[in-house]
């Protein structure tokens, strides 16, 4: 309970600070707020902040480095409170000071995004450097075997994992792009308002379903179905987890991604282009194929690239649907594995963070980060560079 008490005590000091600061400011002018530079509550708030900020800063630091030091937080809050009270005079520009504090807070909040990126890159770079000091990078990037063994002498080649990732992504896009694109065209050009009002949100529900649910779907329904109806009769394999299972389910996940982005882009093509095409005697489908799609192409390519990046970074569906065996094979009904599966595999359970078998996960993570980042940037670039400007 002490932690709760310390937090409560610091908060109580903040409240006391607000009340004291306000009271002191009013007291100095004999109770007339008009003689103060700012409204009385600004004096209260700045005093409260002077107590709360040092108190909680110390609390967080102490929690991370030295748990015994948390008790100092209220002490520091008292000091801050006292110093702020001394500074209060009727001429003190409390509102300006308060607004500066708030602005500093806003700036700090927005730099957290940068700090996160920095944290991601730095943590992975450090551990990856460690990994490459234990394991040659040529063998990582060009190795054709993935045989980790915790007794040493592992083969940790990226190629089979990358192959599995790209193969599954390819199948997922094979499902998602035609279905998503046709669905978007139908919704934007053909569907009546009633149909659209029902079908569009329903398809977008697919995007809100957590990937673990898709993983369960792959594991329990799609995997056995594909094995019993396709793989086994065709003699292609007996495993229910396969590239096909993961790819198919991931494709379903990506349908709303492709369709809603494409829908927006198709709707952004101005009506005058359609009317022009109809006026020349084109049918609706000819208009779509020869006028609307070319105009919307950059946006659609961008949407597909974003979907690709999503598919490459997807984890749960492949963990539960693709299998764990690293394999370089063309048979889509065989179990294969991906970069993300191996990150999970190498980092769950009891791991020894000085062994290359655990550290390789950070190198894999960095590779994944780099690939998805490039795809995202490329997508943004294509959308910006080739976007048609309509007045």
């Amino acid at each position, binding site marked *: *309970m002490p932690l709760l008490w310390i937090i409560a005590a610091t908060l109580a000091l903040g409240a006391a600070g607000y009340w004291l600061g306000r009271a002191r400011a009013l007291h100095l002018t004999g109770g007339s707020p008009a003689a103060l530079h700012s409204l009385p509550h600004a004096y209260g708030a700045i005093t409260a902040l002077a107590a709360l900020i040092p108190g909680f800063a110390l609390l967080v630091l102490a929690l991370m480095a030295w748990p015994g030091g948390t008790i100092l937080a209220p002490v520091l809050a008292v000091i801050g409170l006292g110093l702020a009270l001394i500074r209060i005079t009727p001429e003190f520009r409390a509102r300006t000071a308060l*607004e500066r504090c*708030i*602005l500093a*807070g806003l700036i700090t909040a*927005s730099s*957290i*995004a*940068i700090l*996160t*990126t920095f944290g*991601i890159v730095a*943590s*992975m770079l*450090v551990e990856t450097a460690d990994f490459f000091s234990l394991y040659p990078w040529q063998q990582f990037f060009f190795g054709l075997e993935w045989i980790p063994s915790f007794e040493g002498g592992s083969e940790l080649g990226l190629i089979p994992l990358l192959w599995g990732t790209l193969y599954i992504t390819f199948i997922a896009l094979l499902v998602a792009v*035609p*279905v*998503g694109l*046709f*669905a978007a*065209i*139908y*919704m934007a*050009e053909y*569907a009546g308002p009633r149909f659209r009002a029902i079908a569009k949100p329903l*398809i977008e529900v*697919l995007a809100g379903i*957590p*990937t*673990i649910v898709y*993983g*369960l*779907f792959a*594991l*329990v*329904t799609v995997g056995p179905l594909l094995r019993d109806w396709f793989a086994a009769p065709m003699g292609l394999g007996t495993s229910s987890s396969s590239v096909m299972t993961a790819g198919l389910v991931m494709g*379903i996940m990506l*349908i*709303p991604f492709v369709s809603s982005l494409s829908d927006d882009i198709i709707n952004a093509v101005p009506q005058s282009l359609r009317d022009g095409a109809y006026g020349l005697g084109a*049918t609706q*489908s000819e208009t*779509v194929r020869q006028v609307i799609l070319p105009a919307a192409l950059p946006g659609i390519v961008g949407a597909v690239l*974003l979907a690709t*990046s*999503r598919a*490459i*970074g997807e*984890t*749960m569906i492949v*963990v*539960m649907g693709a299998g764990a065996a690293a394999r370089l094979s063309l048979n889509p009904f065989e179990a294969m594995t991906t970069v*993300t599966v191996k*990150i*999970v595999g190498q*980092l*769950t359970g009891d791991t020894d963070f000085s062994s290359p078998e655990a550290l390789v996960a*950070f190198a894999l993570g960095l590779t*994944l*980060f780099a690939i*998805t980042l490039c795809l995202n940037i490329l997508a943004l670039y294509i959308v910006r560079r080739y976007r048609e400007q309509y007045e």
Partner: protein
Amino acid sequence: MTQSSSLLTADPRTRARNRAEARFRAFGLAAVITGLAALALLVISVIGNGAGAFRQTYLTIPVTLSADRLDPEGNRDPAEMARVTTFGYAPLLAQSLQMHLQAEGIDLTGVSPQALMGMISQEAPAQVRAMVLANPDILGETLELEMLASGRIDGYFKGRVTLESAERDANVSPAQIRLAQAMADAGMMETRWNWAFLTGPDASDQRPEAAGLGVAILGSLYMIGVVLVLALPIGVAASIYLEEFAPKNRLTDIIEVNISNLAAVPSIVFGILGLAIFINLAGLPQSAPIVGGLVLTLMTLPTIIIATRAALRAVPPSIRSAALGLGASKMQAVFHHVLPLAAPGILTGTILGLAQALGETAPLLLIGMVAFVREYPDMPPEGLFDPASALPVQVYNWTQRADPAFVERAAGATIVLLVFLVAMNLIAVLLRRRFERRW
């Protein structure tokens, strides 16, 4: 014959074009139907597999709590009685069951005492033991006790196990199944609503019938709480700065590009970040909701920031100008006027971000949330540092177990997860409907 066409008879080329048109349209409709069918199949698969987890088979029999077996010393001291382990209670239950069945005249041929014990869950002796230790005075009495039936017997009543499948199953025999049916006919066994699935803790590999979601739901709530407390203020503050105050320069450009890129970083990368920074560097404990909450906060921030900025941008500039014209400072104009008007939009975006965080699994695997946790975490704030599970991770955890009864549990947990998500999305939609303002 020359080409003849009119308004009434289309020429071959027009017919071909019309056919192409119909084909194209059919493709579009087929694509939409494919998407809807996939959704339907997904929902049916999850509900079909998981509905059973909300019902559970219990058997109710009179059990004689023999005092000389459970308290050999005879002085009702719980500390001494604790020395009798669950293995001491199990034969007692089996014996009571056998005697009761014989008294009721139910045929026991082909069911050995061992097999009889196998029909009661391994969890039952532990529950009876806990009951006795909590209240030693009930020793010696004969009580009507309700106990969990074992997973396979439960499976029979839910249609997962049949007489044919029992022939091939080493864990259950047809004789046991027939006996279970006889007991159900005699009213000793019934399948009813299962609160324990929502409130109980996880159970080990051999006891799927006892596994519950209590710890996972609590862990998820803790994490969502952390995300809400951190991501909402930070996200709103960052958006206010970027939208209302930031000068157009290199730095703010970098921040903007950064945020849109962070939104597209694979979630597992956030897990790696959490593992490296929060656990290995800062030394926070594994499987703790605080670490999960921090990781999910970083992951949800871009979503919340993007939604909040859109909400702020939707407030017309005239509101700001009016406030400034009346002598408000810029800060006052934003906090007193723009922010309240943008609040519904911000709230909607936040709820959607929280829903995304609730369903996220991959980063939690890396920070050790997969561990087997049976103890409920304490109250926050200390409880945030206790090990806990989370709903989506519990789903994953159960799919990795050998006993097929856990598939039902996993799908059941998925239903719970989806119910939470539907509720959150519904709230977001209602908020939007209720408070949306067109300027």
